[in-house]
Protein backbone atom coordinates (compact mmCIF):
# COMPACT_ATOMS: atom_id res chain seq x y z
CA UNK A 1 0.00 0.00 0.00
CA UNK A 2 2.76 2.43 1.01
CA UNK A 3 4.81 1.53 -2.06
CA UNK A 4 1.79 2.30 -4.21
CA UNK A 5 1.56 5.79 -2.74
CA UNK A 6 5.27 6.36 -3.16
CA UNK A 7 5.08 5.34 -6.81
CA UNK A 8 2.19 7.71 -7.40
CA UNK A 9 4.11 10.59 -5.85
CA UNK A 10 7.28 9.68 -7.75
CA UNK A 11 5.38 9.48 -11.02
CA UNK A 12 3.73 12.82 -10.35
CA UNK A 13 7.12 14.40 -9.64
CA UNK A 14 8.58 13.10 -12.88
CA UNK A 15 5.57 14.33 -14.80
CA UNK A 16 5.87 17.76 -13.24
CA UNK A 17 9.56 18.06 -14.03
CA UNK A 18 8.99 16.89 -17.56
CA UNK A 19 6.17 19.31 -18.16
CA UNK A 20 8.16 22.14 -16.56
CA UNK A 21 10.19 22.31 -19.72
CA UNK A 22 7.20 23.83 -21.40
CA UNK A 23 6.82 27.53 -21.80
CA UNK A 24 5.25 29.49 -18.97
CA UNK A 25 5.97 27.03 -16.25
CA UNK A 26 8.16 28.01 -13.34
CA UNK A 27 9.54 26.12 -10.39
CA UNK A 28 8.21 26.99 -6.99
CA UNK A 29 8.95 25.84 -3.48
CA UNK A 30 7.77 26.67 -0.01
CA UNK A 31 8.55 26.13 3.64
CA UNK A 32 5.88 26.29 6.24
CA UNK A 33 5.12 25.77 9.89
CA UNK A 34 1.97 25.88 11.87
CA UNK A 35 -0.44 24.37 14.31
CA UNK A 36 -2.90 21.53 14.16
CA UNK A 37 -5.86 21.89 16.43
CA UNK A 38 -8.20 18.99 17.15
CA UNK A 39 -9.82 16.84 19.78
CA UNK A 40 -6.44 15.68 21.10
CA UNK A 41 -5.25 19.28 21.54
CA UNK A 42 -2.69 21.32 19.63
CA UNK A 43 0.38 20.10 17.84
CA UNK A 44 3.08 21.54 15.63
CA UNK A 45 3.54 20.80 11.99
CA UNK A 46 6.41 21.61 9.67
CA UNK A 47 6.82 21.01 6.00
CA UNK A 48 8.12 22.01 2.66
CA UNK A 49 6.90 21.62 -0.88
CA UNK A 50 8.55 21.72 -4.26
CA UNK A 51 6.73 21.88 -7.55
CA UNK A 52 5.72 23.92 -10.53
CA UNK A 53 3.47 26.86 -11.26
CA UNK A 54 1.66 27.90 -14.38
CA UNK A 55 -0.32 31.10 -14.27
CA UNK A 56 -2.69 30.79 -11.32
CA UNK A 57 -2.29 27.04 -10.86
CA UNK A 58 0.48 25.29 -9.03
CA UNK A 59 1.15 21.74 -8.03
CA UNK A 60 3.83 20.40 -5.72
CA UNK A 61 5.07 17.45 -3.78
CA UNK A 62 5.13 18.07 -0.07
CA UNK A 63 6.44 16.41 3.03
CA UNK A 64 7.19 17.32 6.61
CA UNK A 65 6.45 16.38 10.18
CA UNK A 66 3.03 16.14 11.75
CA UNK A 67 3.10 15.95 15.55
CA UNK A 68 -0.60 15.55 16.13
CA UNK A 69 -1.04 12.68 18.66
CA UNK A 70 1.34 10.39 16.78
CA UNK A 71 4.42 11.85 15.10
CA UNK A 72 4.27 11.04 11.43
CA UNK A 73 5.62 12.00 8.05
CA UNK A 74 3.03 12.96 5.48
CA UNK A 75 3.94 12.73 1.83
CA UNK A 76 1.43 14.39 -0.41
CA UNK A 77 0.56 16.09 -3.64
CA UNK A 78 -0.62 19.65 -3.26
CA UNK A 79 -2.66 21.54 -5.85
CA UNK A 80 -3.21 25.25 -5.45
CA UNK A 81 -5.36 27.77 -7.26
CA UNK A 82 -4.61 31.45 -6.88
CA UNK A 83 -7.14 34.10 -7.62
CA UNK A 84 -4.61 36.40 -9.33
CA UNK A 85 -1.33 35.69 -11.05
CA UNK A 86 0.65 37.98 -8.80
CA UNK A 87 2.42 38.01 -5.43
CA UNK A 88 -0.56 39.34 -3.49
CA UNK A 89 -3.52 37.04 -3.87
CA UNK A 90 -5.92 34.80 -2.06
CA UNK A 91 -5.60 31.12 -2.83
CA UNK A 92 -7.21 27.77 -2.17
CA UNK A 93 -5.51 24.40 -1.93
CA UNK A 94 -6.22 20.69 -1.76
CA UNK A 95 -3.69 18.05 -0.88
CA UNK A 96 -3.73 14.30 -0.64
CA UNK A 97 -1.23 11.54 0.01
CA UNK A 98 -0.04 9.04 2.54
CA UNK A 99 0.85 9.43 6.18
CA UNK A 100 3.90 7.38 7.20
CA UNK A 101 4.43 6.49 10.87
CA UNK A 102 7.59 7.98 12.37
CA UNK A 103 8.82 4.74 13.90
CA UNK A 104 7.86 1.11 14.13
CA UNK A 105 7.54 1.26 17.92
CA UNK A 106 4.04 1.84 19.27
CA UNK A 107 3.48 5.29 20.68
CA UNK A 108 -0.20 5.24 21.44
CA UNK A 109 -1.31 3.32 24.44
CA UNK A 110 -4.73 4.83 24.97
CA UNK A 111 -7.55 2.32 24.61
CA UNK A 112 -5.13 -0.60 24.85
CA UNK A 113 -6.52 -3.46 26.83
CA UNK A 114 -3.86 -6.16 26.80
CA UNK A 115 -0.17 -6.60 26.19
CA UNK A 116 0.51 -7.50 22.59
CA UNK A 117 3.20 -9.89 21.48
CA UNK A 118 3.77 -8.51 18.03
CA UNK A 119 2.99 -5.05 16.87
CA UNK A 120 3.07 -3.38 13.55
CA UNK A 121 2.48 0.26 12.77
CA UNK A 122 1.08 1.47 9.52
CA UNK A 123 0.23 4.82 8.11
CA UNK A 124 -2.83 5.72 6.14
CA UNK A 125 -4.59 8.33 4.12
CA UNK A 126 -3.57 11.94 4.47
CA UNK A 127 -5.48 14.81 2.93
CA UNK A 128 -6.47 18.38 3.49
CA UNK A 129 -7.99 21.47 1.96
CA UNK A 130 -8.14 25.11 2.84
CA UNK A 131 -7.76 28.71 1.88
CA UNK A 132 -5.06 31.28 2.34
CA UNK A 133 -3.66 34.60 1.47
CA UNK A 134 -0.19 35.49 0.24
CA UNK A 135 1.55 38.80 0.03
CA UNK A 136 4.96 39.94 -1.18
CA UNK A 137 7.89 39.52 1.15
CA UNK A 138 11.64 39.80 0.61
CA UNK A 139 12.79 39.96 -3.01
CA UNK A 140 11.37 36.96 -4.77
CA UNK A 141 9.38 35.45 -1.98
CA UNK A 142 5.83 35.61 -0.80
CA UNK A 143 4.63 35.29 2.76
CA UNK A 144 1.49 33.25 3.08
CA UNK A 145 -1.07 32.33 5.70
CA UNK A 146 -3.44 29.41 5.30
CA UNK A 147 -6.14 27.68 7.28
CA UNK A 148 -8.07 24.56 6.50
CA UNK A 149 -8.99 21.04 7.25
CA UNK A 150 -6.45 18.26 7.69
CA UNK A 151 -7.04 14.53 8.02
CA UNK A 152 -4.59 11.75 8.82
CA UNK A 153 -4.93 8.06 9.46
CA UNK A 154 -2.75 5.81 11.53
CA UNK A 155 -2.99 2.07 12.21
CA UNK A 156 -1.64 -0.27 14.86
CA UNK A 157 -1.87 -3.99 14.30
CA UNK A 158 -1.26 -6.22 17.30
CA UNK A 159 -1.02 -9.97 17.24
CA UNK A 160 -1.26 -11.82 20.49
CA UNK A 161 -1.67 -15.39 21.58
CA UNK A 162 -4.50 -15.72 24.00
CA UNK A 163 -6.56 -18.46 25.55
CA UNK A 164 -10.12 -17.14 25.85
CA UNK A 165 -12.16 -18.63 28.69
CA UNK A 166 -9.20 -20.86 29.52
CA UNK A 167 -9.75 -22.78 26.29
CA UNK A 168 -7.41 -23.52 23.41
CA UNK A 169 -5.02 -20.72 22.63
CA UNK A 170 -5.54 -18.71 19.47
CA UNK A 171 -3.89 -15.79 17.80
CA UNK A 172 -5.92 -12.66 18.22
CA UNK A 173 -5.27 -9.99 15.61
CA UNK A 174 -6.44 -6.60 16.72
CA UNK A 175 -6.38 -3.64 14.39
CA UNK A 176 -6.74 -0.11 15.66
CA UNK A 177 -7.46 2.52 13.06
CA UNK A 178 -7.13 6.08 14.26
CA UNK A 179 -8.63 8.88 12.22
CA UNK A 180 -7.54 12.36 13.16
CA UNK A 181 -9.42 15.41 11.90
CA UNK A 182 -7.80 18.71 12.62
CA UNK A 183 -7.92 22.41 11.88
CA UNK A 184 -4.66 23.31 10.22
CA UNK A 185 -3.23 26.83 10.46
CA UNK A 186 0.06 27.49 8.72
CA UNK A 187 2.33 30.28 7.68
CA UNK A 188 5.36 30.15 5.47
CA UNK A 189 7.41 31.50 2.66
CA UNK A 190 6.96 30.68 -0.99
CA UNK A 191 9.88 31.06 -3.40
Amino acid sequence: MQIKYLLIVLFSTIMMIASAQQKGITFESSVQAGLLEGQQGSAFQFGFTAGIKQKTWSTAIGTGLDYYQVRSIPLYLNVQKRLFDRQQTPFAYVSGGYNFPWSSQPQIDIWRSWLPQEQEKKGGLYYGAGIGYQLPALKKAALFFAAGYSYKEYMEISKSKMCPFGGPCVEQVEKLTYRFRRLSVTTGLRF
Partner: protein
Amino acid sequence: MKKMIRFMSMAVTATVLLTMQGCFKDDCRKSYTLYQPIYKSLAQVRAEMKSTTPTALENTGKLNVFGNYIFLNEAGKGIHIIDNSNPTAPKNISFINIPGNVDLAVKGSYLYADSYSDIIVFNISNPTNVSPVKFMNNVMKERNVYWNQGITNPDSINVVVGYTTKDTVVDCERYNTWTRTNGMMFASAASIYAAAPQTGTGGSMASFTILNNYLYTVGSSSLYAINITDPGNPAQTAVKNVGWGIETIYPFQNKLFIGSRTGMFIYDLNNPSNPTAQGQFSHARSCDPVIADGQYAYVTLRGGTQCNSFTNELNVIDVSNLSAPVLKARHNLTNPHGLAKDGSTLLICDGKDGLKLYDASSPLSLQLVKTVGGFETYDVIAMNKKAIVVAKDGLYQYDYSNPANPSLISKISVSKK
Protein backbone atom coordinates in the same frame (compact mmCIF):
# COMPACT_ATOMS: atom_id res chain seq x y z
CA MET B 1 -14.04 42.16 -7.31
CA LYS B 2 -16.78 39.78 -8.44
CA LYS B 3 -14.14 37.23 -9.35
CA MET B 4 -12.61 37.50 -5.90
CA ILE B 5 -15.94 37.12 -4.12
CA ARG B 6 -16.85 34.08 -6.23
CA PHE B 7 -13.47 32.48 -5.63
CA MET B 8 -13.49 33.09 -1.91
CA SER B 9 -17.05 31.88 -1.45
CA MET B 10 -16.28 28.65 -3.32
CA ALA B 11 -13.12 28.06 -1.35
CA VAL B 12 -14.78 28.80 1.99
CA THR B 13 -17.74 26.55 1.12
CA ALA B 14 -15.44 23.67 0.18
CA THR B 15 -13.43 24.05 3.36
CA VAL B 16 -16.49 24.32 5.58
CA LEU B 17 -18.01 21.24 4.00
CA LEU B 18 -14.88 19.23 4.67
CA THR B 19 -14.65 20.62 8.17
CA MET B 20 -18.25 19.88 9.05
CA GLN B 21 -17.89 16.29 7.91
CA GLY B 22 -16.34 15.20 11.17
CA CYS B 23 -16.47 18.39 13.22
CA PHE B 24 -12.74 17.90 13.93
CA LYS B 25 -13.60 14.85 15.96
CA ASP B 26 -11.00 12.09 16.14
CA ASP B 27 -12.08 8.51 16.25
CA CYS B 28 -10.65 5.06 16.62
CA ARG B 29 -12.08 1.80 15.34
CA LYS B 30 -10.96 -1.53 16.68
CA SER B 31 -11.40 -4.69 14.69
CA TYR B 32 -10.91 -8.07 16.29
CA THR B 33 -12.35 -11.55 16.43
CA LEU B 34 -15.01 -12.35 18.97
CA TYR B 35 -14.74 -15.87 20.39
CA GLN B 36 -17.74 -17.70 21.78
CA PRO B 37 -16.82 -20.86 23.66
CA ILE B 38 -17.90 -24.37 22.74
CA TYR B 39 -18.17 -26.59 25.80
CA LYS B 40 -17.90 -30.30 26.46
CA SER B 41 -18.08 -32.13 29.76
CA LEU B 42 -14.74 -33.05 31.28
CA ALA B 43 -15.74 -36.72 31.11
CA GLN B 44 -16.35 -36.37 27.37
CA VAL B 45 -13.08 -34.49 26.90
CA ARG B 46 -11.17 -37.18 28.74
CA ALA B 47 -12.81 -39.90 26.70
CA GLU B 48 -11.38 -38.20 23.59
CA MET B 49 -7.86 -37.88 25.03
CA LYS B 50 -6.25 -40.52 22.88
CA SER B 51 -4.25 -40.69 19.70
CA THR B 52 -6.06 -39.88 16.50
CA THR B 53 -5.07 -39.36 12.91
CA PRO B 54 -2.16 -36.96 12.44
CA THR B 55 -2.98 -33.28 12.06
CA ALA B 56 -0.94 -30.48 10.54
CA LEU B 57 1.35 -28.46 12.79
CA GLU B 58 -0.15 -25.04 13.44
CA ASN B 59 1.00 -23.42 16.64
CA THR B 60 3.83 -25.57 17.89
CA GLY B 61 5.13 -25.33 21.41
CA LYS B 62 7.19 -27.53 23.64
CA LEU B 63 9.09 -30.52 22.52
CA ASN B 64 10.17 -33.81 23.97
CA VAL B 65 12.29 -36.24 22.06
CA PHE B 66 12.44 -39.85 23.11
CA GLY B 67 14.21 -42.48 21.09
CA ASN B 68 13.00 -42.29 17.54
CA TYR B 69 9.93 -40.24 18.37
CA ILE B 70 9.37 -36.54 18.72
CA PHE B 71 6.47 -35.45 20.91
CA LEU B 72 5.59 -31.91 19.88
CA ASN B 73 3.05 -29.80 21.71
CA GLU B 74 0.34 -28.05 19.71
CA ALA B 75 -0.30 -25.13 22.05
CA GLY B 76 -3.48 -25.67 24.04
CA LYS B 77 -4.68 -28.54 21.89
CA GLY B 78 -2.53 -31.61 22.29
CA ILE B 79 0.58 -33.41 21.17
CA HIS B 80 1.84 -34.45 17.73
CA ILE B 81 3.75 -37.69 17.59
CA ILE B 82 6.44 -37.68 14.93
CA ASP B 83 8.35 -40.78 13.89
CA ASN B 84 11.93 -39.60 13.47
CA SER B 85 13.52 -42.97 12.66
CA ASN B 86 14.71 -41.36 9.48
CA PRO B 87 15.64 -37.75 10.35
CA THR B 88 15.78 -36.81 6.69
CA ALA B 89 12.09 -37.66 6.37
CA PRO B 90 10.30 -37.45 9.73
CA LYS B 91 6.70 -38.66 9.66
CA ASN B 92 3.81 -37.11 11.56
CA ILE B 93 2.05 -40.30 12.65
CA SER B 94 -0.62 -39.30 15.17
CA PHE B 95 -2.07 -36.61 17.37
CA ILE B 96 -3.24 -36.82 20.98
CA ASN B 97 -6.14 -34.51 21.84
CA ILE B 98 -5.32 -32.79 25.13
CA PRO B 99 -7.17 -29.49 25.62
CA GLY B 100 -5.13 -27.02 27.64
CA ASN B 101 -1.86 -28.83 27.02
CA VAL B 102 1.31 -26.77 27.34
CA ASP B 103 4.08 -29.09 28.44
CA LEU B 104 5.10 -32.72 28.47
CA ALA B 105 7.78 -35.16 29.57
CA VAL B 106 8.48 -38.79 28.79
CA LYS B 107 9.83 -41.67 30.81
CA GLY B 108 9.92 -45.18 29.46
CA SER B 109 6.52 -46.08 28.09
CA TYR B 110 4.77 -43.16 29.72
CA LEU B 111 4.05 -39.64 28.62
CA TYR B 112 3.17 -37.03 31.23
CA ALA B 113 1.22 -34.08 29.92
CA ASP B 114 -0.67 -31.23 31.49
CA SER B 115 -4.25 -30.37 30.65
CA TYR B 116 -4.94 -27.04 32.33
CA SER B 117 -4.26 -27.83 36.01
CA ASP B 118 -4.49 -31.61 35.58
CA ILE B 119 -1.66 -33.97 34.75
CA ILE B 120 -2.49 -36.90 32.51
CA VAL B 121 -0.40 -40.05 32.24
CA PHE B 122 -0.47 -41.76 28.84
CA ASN B 123 0.79 -45.15 27.84
CA ILE B 124 2.89 -44.61 24.71
CA SER B 125 4.22 -48.13 24.23
CA ASN B 126 2.42 -48.04 20.88
CA PRO B 127 2.78 -44.47 19.57
CA THR B 128 -0.09 -44.89 17.15
CA ASN B 129 -2.43 -46.10 19.87
CA VAL B 130 -1.85 -43.85 22.84
CA SER B 131 -4.33 -43.91 25.68
CA PRO B 132 -4.58 -42.31 29.13
CA VAL B 133 -3.91 -44.44 32.18
CA LYS B 134 -4.30 -41.89 34.94
CA PHE B 135 -5.81 -38.46 35.47
CA MET B 136 -4.34 -36.39 38.30
CA ASN B 137 -6.90 -33.73 39.11
CA ASN B 138 -5.99 -30.10 39.74
CA VAL B 139 -2.29 -30.65 40.48
CA MET B 140 -1.01 -27.33 39.15
CA LYS B 141 -3.51 -25.08 40.85
CA GLU B 142 -2.27 -21.89 39.18
CA ARG B 143 -3.63 -23.21 35.91
CA ASN B 144 -7.01 -24.26 37.23
CA VAL B 145 -9.87 -23.16 35.01
CA TYR B 146 -12.69 -25.55 35.86
CA TRP B 147 -12.18 -27.22 39.25
CA ASN B 148 -14.52 -25.24 41.45
CA GLN B 149 -14.62 -25.93 45.14
CA GLY B 150 -16.51 -29.07 46.02
CA ILE B 151 -16.87 -30.31 42.43
CA THR B 152 -15.22 -33.65 41.76
CA ASN B 153 -17.48 -35.29 39.20
CA PRO B 154 -16.02 -34.89 35.66
CA ASP B 155 -19.54 -35.13 34.22
CA SER B 156 -20.56 -31.94 35.96
CA ILE B 157 -17.58 -29.90 34.74
CA ASN B 158 -17.66 -28.00 31.47
CA VAL B 159 -14.46 -27.47 29.53
CA VAL B 160 -13.93 -25.04 26.66
CA VAL B 161 -12.83 -27.11 23.67
CA GLY B 162 -13.18 -24.60 20.86
CA TYR B 163 -14.86 -21.46 19.70
CA THR B 164 -17.24 -20.03 17.19
CA THR B 165 -15.78 -16.83 15.85
CA LYS B 166 -17.15 -13.58 14.58
CA ASP B 167 -15.18 -10.67 13.17
CA THR B 168 -16.17 -7.55 15.00
CA VAL B 169 -15.55 -3.82 14.65
CA VAL B 170 -16.24 -1.51 17.56
CA ASP B 171 -15.45 1.94 18.71
CA CYS B 172 -12.15 1.77 20.62
CA GLU B 173 -13.55 3.41 23.71
CA ARG B 174 -16.31 0.85 23.99
CA TYR B 175 -13.98 -2.11 23.69
CA ASN B 176 -13.88 -4.09 26.87
CA THR B 177 -11.59 -7.04 27.22
CA TRP B 178 -12.99 -10.37 28.25
CA THR B 179 -10.05 -12.57 27.57
CA ARG B 180 -7.18 -13.77 29.64
CA THR B 181 -3.77 -13.99 28.08
CA ASN B 182 -1.69 -17.03 28.67
CA GLY B 183 1.85 -16.67 27.40
CA MET B 184 2.91 -19.61 25.32
CA MET B 185 6.28 -21.05 26.00
CA PHE B 186 8.29 -23.66 24.25
CA ALA B 187 10.49 -26.35 25.57
CA SER B 188 12.37 -29.41 24.65
CA ALA B 189 13.82 -32.54 26.07
CA ALA B 190 15.53 -35.83 25.51
CA SER B 191 17.82 -37.42 23.00
CA ILE B 192 17.07 -38.71 19.58
CA TYR B 193 20.06 -39.93 17.68
CA ALA B 194 21.67 -41.85 20.49
CA ALA B 195 20.17 -45.01 21.87
CA ALA B 196 16.83 -44.29 23.45
CA PRO B 197 17.33 -43.28 27.08
CA GLN B 198 14.93 -44.31 29.76
CA THR B 199 14.15 -40.71 30.56
CA GLY B 200 14.17 -37.59 28.47
CA THR B 201 16.32 -34.61 29.29
CA GLY B 202 14.62 -31.28 29.79
CA GLY B 203 15.32 -28.43 27.44
CA SER B 204 15.84 -24.82 28.33
CA MET B 205 12.23 -23.66 28.03
CA ALA B 206 10.48 -26.65 29.53
CA SER B 207 8.30 -26.38 32.59
CA PHE B 208 8.24 -30.20 32.94
CA THR B 209 11.28 -32.31 33.61
CA ILE B 210 12.00 -35.79 34.85
CA LEU B 211 14.95 -36.64 37.06
CA ASN B 212 15.31 -40.25 38.19
CA ASN B 213 11.97 -41.25 39.71
CA TYR B 214 10.46 -37.79 39.97
CA LEU B 215 8.57 -35.54 37.61
CA TYR B 216 9.12 -31.88 38.46
CA THR B 217 6.93 -29.16 37.02
CA VAL B 218 6.68 -25.45 37.58
CA GLY B 219 3.62 -23.27 37.46
CA SER B 220 3.72 -19.50 37.57
CA SER B 221 4.70 -19.50 41.24
CA SER B 222 5.15 -23.10 42.40
CA LEU B 223 7.40 -26.10 41.99
CA TYR B 224 5.68 -29.48 42.09
CA ALA B 225 7.38 -32.79 42.82
CA ILE B 226 5.61 -35.96 41.64
CA ASN B 227 6.86 -39.42 42.40
CA ILE B 228 6.79 -41.63 39.29
CA THR B 229 8.51 -44.67 40.72
CA ASP B 230 5.37 -46.45 39.56
CA PRO B 231 5.26 -44.63 36.21
CA GLY B 232 1.62 -45.36 35.52
CA ASN B 233 0.48 -44.29 38.93
CA PRO B 234 2.25 -41.07 39.95
CA ALA B 235 1.75 -39.37 43.29
CA GLN B 236 2.41 -35.77 44.22
CA THR B 237 4.94 -35.43 47.04
CA ALA B 238 5.60 -31.70 47.40
CA VAL B 239 4.51 -28.24 46.35
CA LYS B 240 6.99 -25.42 46.88
CA ASN B 241 6.25 -21.76 46.58
CA VAL B 242 9.11 -20.45 44.44
CA GLY B 243 8.06 -16.85 43.83
CA TRP B 244 6.30 -15.23 40.91
CA GLY B 245 6.92 -15.27 37.19
CA ILE B 246 8.31 -18.81 37.18
CA GLU B 247 8.80 -20.06 33.64
CA THR B 248 11.29 -22.84 33.10
CA ILE B 249 12.95 -25.74 34.84
CA TYR B 250 16.21 -27.47 33.95
CA PRO B 251 17.80 -30.38 35.80
CA PHE B 252 21.55 -30.65 36.16
CA GLN B 253 23.27 -33.24 38.27
CA ASN B 254 21.36 -33.28 41.52
CA LYS B 255 19.90 -29.80 41.16
CA LEU B 256 17.01 -28.02 39.54
CA PHE B 257 17.66 -24.69 37.84
CA ILE B 258 14.47 -22.67 37.73
CA GLY B 259 14.15 -19.65 35.47
CA SER B 260 11.85 -16.85 36.53
CA ARG B 261 11.24 -13.32 35.30
CA THR B 262 13.36 -11.93 38.10
CA GLY B 263 16.14 -14.45 38.40
CA MET B 264 17.40 -18.00 38.51
CA PHE B 265 16.70 -20.27 41.47
CA ILE B 266 18.66 -23.40 42.35
CA TYR B 267 16.94 -26.22 44.22
CA ASP B 268 18.75 -29.12 45.79
CA LEU B 269 17.42 -32.66 45.33
CA ASN B 270 19.18 -34.54 48.09
CA ASN B 271 15.68 -35.45 49.12
CA PRO B 272 14.06 -35.74 45.67
CA SER B 273 10.56 -35.87 47.06
CA ASN B 274 11.00 -32.50 48.69
CA PRO B 275 13.30 -30.09 46.78
CA THR B 276 14.93 -27.41 48.92
CA ALA B 277 16.07 -23.95 47.88
CA GLN B 278 19.83 -23.64 47.73
CA GLY B 279 20.72 -20.44 45.90
CA GLN B 280 19.52 -17.77 43.56
CA PHE B 281 20.75 -15.18 41.12
CA SER B 282 18.67 -12.07 40.49
CA HIS B 283 18.58 -10.16 37.24
CA ALA B 284 16.57 -7.44 35.55
CA ARG B 285 12.96 -8.34 34.89
CA SER B 286 12.77 -10.37 31.70
CA CYS B 287 11.94 -13.81 30.34
CA ASP B 288 14.78 -16.19 30.98
CA PRO B 289 15.27 -19.84 30.13
CA VAL B 290 18.33 -21.36 31.75
CA ILE B 291 20.65 -24.30 31.19
CA ALA B 292 23.65 -25.40 33.19
CA ASP B 293 26.85 -27.17 32.30
CA GLY B 294 29.36 -27.90 35.04
CA GLN B 295 30.77 -24.66 36.39
CA TYR B 296 28.50 -22.31 34.48
CA ALA B 297 24.81 -21.64 33.99
CA TYR B 298 23.66 -19.89 30.81
CA VAL B 299 20.62 -17.67 31.04
CA THR B 300 19.06 -15.88 28.11
CA LEU B 301 17.21 -12.72 29.09
CA ARG B 302 14.51 -11.73 26.68
CA GLY B 303 12.79 -8.38 26.57
CA GLY B 304 9.65 -7.27 24.81
CA THR B 305 6.18 -6.22 25.80
CA GLN B 306 5.21 -9.60 27.18
CA CYS B 307 8.34 -9.81 29.28
CA ASN B 308 8.14 -6.16 30.38
CA SER B 309 11.79 -5.54 29.65
CA PHE B 310 14.21 -4.21 27.07
CA THR B 311 17.04 -6.58 28.02
CA ASN B 312 18.09 -9.08 25.36
CA GLU B 313 21.27 -10.84 26.33
CA LEU B 314 22.98 -14.01 27.46
CA ASN B 315 24.29 -14.12 31.01
CA VAL B 316 27.03 -16.57 31.88
CA ILE B 317 26.87 -17.28 35.59
CA ASP B 318 29.47 -19.06 37.66
CA VAL B 319 27.58 -21.64 39.74
CA SER B 320 30.58 -23.39 41.25
CA ASN B 321 29.28 -22.11 44.57
CA LEU B 322 25.61 -22.98 44.21
CA SER B 323 24.65 -20.92 47.21
CA ALA B 324 26.09 -17.76 45.68
CA PRO B 325 26.03 -17.70 41.86
CA VAL B 326 28.07 -14.90 40.29
CA LEU B 327 27.52 -13.19 36.93
CA LYS B 328 30.71 -13.55 34.91
CA ALA B 329 29.89 -12.45 31.37
CA ARG B 330 27.21 -10.90 29.19
CA HIS B 331 26.63 -11.17 25.47
CA ASN B 332 24.17 -9.03 23.54
CA LEU B 333 21.43 -10.82 21.64
CA THR B 334 18.37 -9.74 19.69
CA ASN B 335 15.41 -11.70 21.06
CA PRO B 336 16.74 -14.87 22.71
CA HIS B 337 14.52 -17.81 23.57
CA GLY B 338 15.69 -21.38 24.14
CA LEU B 339 19.27 -22.54 24.21
CA ALA B 340 21.23 -25.76 24.36
CA LYS B 341 24.83 -26.81 24.81
CA ASP B 342 26.50 -29.77 23.20
CA GLY B 343 30.16 -30.13 24.08
CA SER B 344 31.78 -26.80 23.39
CA THR B 345 29.03 -25.62 21.08
CA LEU B 346 26.34 -23.35 22.50
CA LEU B 347 23.21 -22.95 20.38
CA ILE B 348 20.85 -20.06 21.01
CA CYS B 349 17.47 -19.45 19.43
CA ASP B 350 17.58 -15.72 18.87
CA GLY B 351 14.05 -15.08 17.65
CA LYS B 352 13.90 -13.62 14.17
CA ASP B 353 17.69 -13.67 13.89
CA GLY B 354 17.47 -17.45 13.70
CA LEU B 355 19.76 -20.00 15.31
CA LYS B 356 23.15 -18.83 16.57
CA LEU B 357 26.03 -21.24 17.14
CA TYR B 358 28.81 -20.18 19.50
CA ASP B 359 32.16 -21.68 20.31
CA ALA B 360 31.88 -21.96 24.09
CA SER B 361 35.30 -23.51 24.76
CA SER B 362 35.90 -20.41 26.84
CA PRO B 363 32.47 -19.69 28.32
CA LEU B 364 33.47 -16.20 29.39
CA SER B 365 34.48 -15.17 25.88
CA LEU B 366 32.02 -16.84 23.55
CA GLN B 367 32.75 -16.62 19.86
CA LEU B 368 29.88 -16.50 17.39
CA VAL B 369 30.64 -19.14 14.77
CA LYS B 370 27.52 -19.06 12.62
CA THR B 371 24.06 -17.58 12.43
CA VAL B 372 21.53 -19.69 10.59
CA GLY B 373 18.93 -17.14 9.56
CA GLY B 374 15.70 -17.12 7.65
CA PHE B 375 13.47 -18.48 10.37
CA GLU B 376 12.12 -17.41 13.75
CA THR B 377 13.39 -19.82 16.37
CA TYR B 378 12.01 -20.66 19.82
CA ASP B 379 13.82 -23.66 21.21
CA VAL B 380 16.48 -26.17 20.38
CA ILE B 381 17.61 -29.62 21.41
CA ALA B 382 21.25 -30.28 20.66
CA MET B 383 22.85 -33.67 21.02
CA ASN B 384 25.56 -35.50 19.17
CA LYS B 385 26.00 -32.72 16.62
CA LYS B 386 22.34 -32.79 15.65
CA ALA B 387 19.89 -30.04 16.52
CA ILE B 388 16.11 -30.11 16.54
CA VAL B 389 14.82 -26.58 16.32
CA VAL B 390 11.27 -25.44 16.99
CA ALA B 391 10.58 -22.41 14.83
CA LYS B 392 7.54 -20.36 14.03
CA ASP B 393 7.19 -21.94 10.62
CA GLY B 394 8.04 -25.51 11.47
CA LEU B 395 10.26 -28.10 13.04
CA TYR B 396 13.80 -28.11 11.66
CA GLN B 397 16.61 -30.60 12.07
CA TYR B 398 20.22 -29.58 11.51
CA ASP B 399 23.53 -31.36 11.42
CA TYR B 400 26.18 -29.10 12.92
CA SER B 401 29.15 -31.47 12.81
CA ASN B 402 30.82 -28.44 11.29
CA PRO B 403 29.39 -25.57 13.39
CA ALA B 404 30.58 -23.06 10.83
CA ASN B 405 28.43 -24.68 8.20
CA PRO B 406 25.36 -26.43 9.65
CA SER B 407 23.35 -28.38 7.13
CA LEU B 408 19.58 -28.75 7.10
CA ILE B 409 18.50 -32.37 7.44
CA SER B 410 14.74 -31.91 7.27
CA LYS B 411 11.83 -29.65 8.01
CA ILE B 412 8.19 -30.25 8.90
CA SER B 413 6.30 -27.10 7.99
CA VAL B 414 3.61 -25.46 10.02
CA SER B 415 0.30 -25.30 8.22
CA LYS B 416 -0.59 -21.75 7.17
CA LYS B 417 -4.23 -20.86 7.62
